[in-house]
């Protein structure tokens, strides 16, 4: 009897950086979060080779979902080419062997910081959002134990009061990103700091959205075909950012969420905040046959 005959030869048996038990825990917590839409589920946020606050929550979800056939796209505030997005994309590809893409239509898994792509996502796609602060009640209740009770009781009077106060003070709701929204008529969530523009995209969407906060060790989910309703008074309508009339200086794309780029003379130019949509628009303009998917907004109006 030799040692050789008693053991198997070494072969790679795991991918996605995290060990199997870490991934199993996160899978279970994701299933729980899918079962109770909008409810924050705690998980044992592991160490990943990246500092807390740089998307470790999203990264752990991606590492759990990824396999060598998952096509991944990573965006940082709408850009595929920021240092952070490029590093996460490279990392995910290296630890899983998964192919990467910049095209939202081709991706199976999209990890994103603070934006939802402009092209409509499908049933077979998963969007992972990096969340810095998952607790919508934090501004009104610093004690997290009481905040949990408030969620349990659907005690959201203080959230509404915040909106009331904003209108009284400023004549309008000032909340920009992270607009508090009611999920499936039950839990109020912070939809990460996506702009108001992106919140309606989550409402009755076909795709699964997983929002994960690594530092705060909590995740919550918007399952497919789930209601996501921004908190608004009946007589003060929800308003998205006024970007419908802006044109992208580089690509000519119009009617989408834009980044404002201040110029030396005090004026501003705008660039479409979904960098790959901008690239595809330019390529199409130059005569290439590129597929641009249906978009949630057309000419600044929600399509469905």
């Amino acid at each position, binding site marked *: 009897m030799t040692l050789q005959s008693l053991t198997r030869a070494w072969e790679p048996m795991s991918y996605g950086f995290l060990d199997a038990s870490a991934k199993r825990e996160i899978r279970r917590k994701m299933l729980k979060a899918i079962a109770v839409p909008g409810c924050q589920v705690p998980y044992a946020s592991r160490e990943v080779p990246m500092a807390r606050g740089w998307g470790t929550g999203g990264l752990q979800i991606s590492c759990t979902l990824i396999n060598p056939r998952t096509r991944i796209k990573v965006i940082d505030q709408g850009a595929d080419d920021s240092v952070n997005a490029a590093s996460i994309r490279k990392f995910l590809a290296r630890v899983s062997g998964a192919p990467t893409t910049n095209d939202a239509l081709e991706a199976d898994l999209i990890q994103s910081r603070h934006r939802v792509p402009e092209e409509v996502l499908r049933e077979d796609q998963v969007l992972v959002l990096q969340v810095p602060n998952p607790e919508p009640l934090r501004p009104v209740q610093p004690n997290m134990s009481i905040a949990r009770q408030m969620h349990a009781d659907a005690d959201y009077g203080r959230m*509404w009061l915040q909106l*009331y106060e904003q209108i009284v003070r400023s004549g309008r709701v000032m909340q920009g990103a992270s607009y508090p929204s009611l999920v499936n008529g039950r839990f109020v969530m912070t939809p990460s700091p996506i702009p108001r523009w992106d919140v309606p995209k989550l409402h009755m969407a076909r795709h699964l959205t997983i929002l994960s906060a690594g530092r705060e060790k909590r995740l919550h989910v918007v399952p497919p075909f789930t209601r996501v309703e921004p908190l608004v008074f009946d007589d003060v309508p929800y308003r998205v950012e006024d970007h419908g009339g802006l044109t992208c200086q580089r690509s000519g794309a119009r009617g989408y969420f834009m980044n404002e780029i201040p110029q030396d003379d005090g004026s501003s130019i705008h660039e479409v905040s979904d960098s790959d949509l901008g690239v595809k628009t330019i390529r199409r303009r130059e005569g290439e046959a590129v597929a641009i998917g249906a978009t949630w907004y057309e000419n600044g109006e929600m399509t469905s």
Partner: protein
Amino acid sequence: MSLTMDEPTLVTTRPLLTARDVSKAYGPVQALRGVSATVYPGEVLGIVGESGSGKSTFLRALNLEETPDTGSYTLDLPDVQGNLFDLDRYARRMLCATRIGIVYQNPHLGLLMSHSSSGNVAERLLVAGERRFAVLRDKAQRALEASEFPTERMDAPPAELSGGMQQRVQLAKAIALEPALLLLDEPTTGLDVSVQALVLDTLKRLQQERRITMVIVSHDLGVIRTLSDRVMVMRRGEVVEQGLADQVFQDPQHAYTQQLVHAKL
């Protein structure tokens, strides 16, 4: 000595509030010893007693903020059944948020000091499910008007208001939803005499116009005498005497009450 309160004074009907044998200890301190009270719809029950006699503790129990060690508490209202001390946290919160209003001695307990005054009132309406901004504004303004709060200042935060004005905001908040029961803990204490008189007038007017059932706590006999139909005298967690206000003040039975009344005269 008249310790029974079962004969109605104003209307012949069932009592709105019945508390029986309420006891509460904080460690070695027995704050309440078997306190019972009955209040009929539209009546004002005044509670007097020296400092530390358990008045505020009893009021907090009636507002379901405090769970006594023993005793029962019922309110004769539609959809409200059984001993309210047995309700779970959620049911308590909903009952207090919609049917019971309270004015605390310390406005910091009852108000969000840096929110607008109207917002403080509107919060009650929001908790009850009102989602129309214009209606919130309108109802908050009307509650503030009823409390004689200058409505041009309705969006000022309580932190920038005088003590008397803060009490009016608390009062507006307490009556915004037309509560079945209004609890007042020393609503005039700490205010100077002229402001005290104004707040008392407001309470009196509210009582006359709306016939809100009230329980008012004060160590000031004058306040109790002005507002109450019935009086309950407390000492060291016990009720030493209770009865119709006129009876108690004109013909106090218990030595302690006699002392109180004569000290006042």
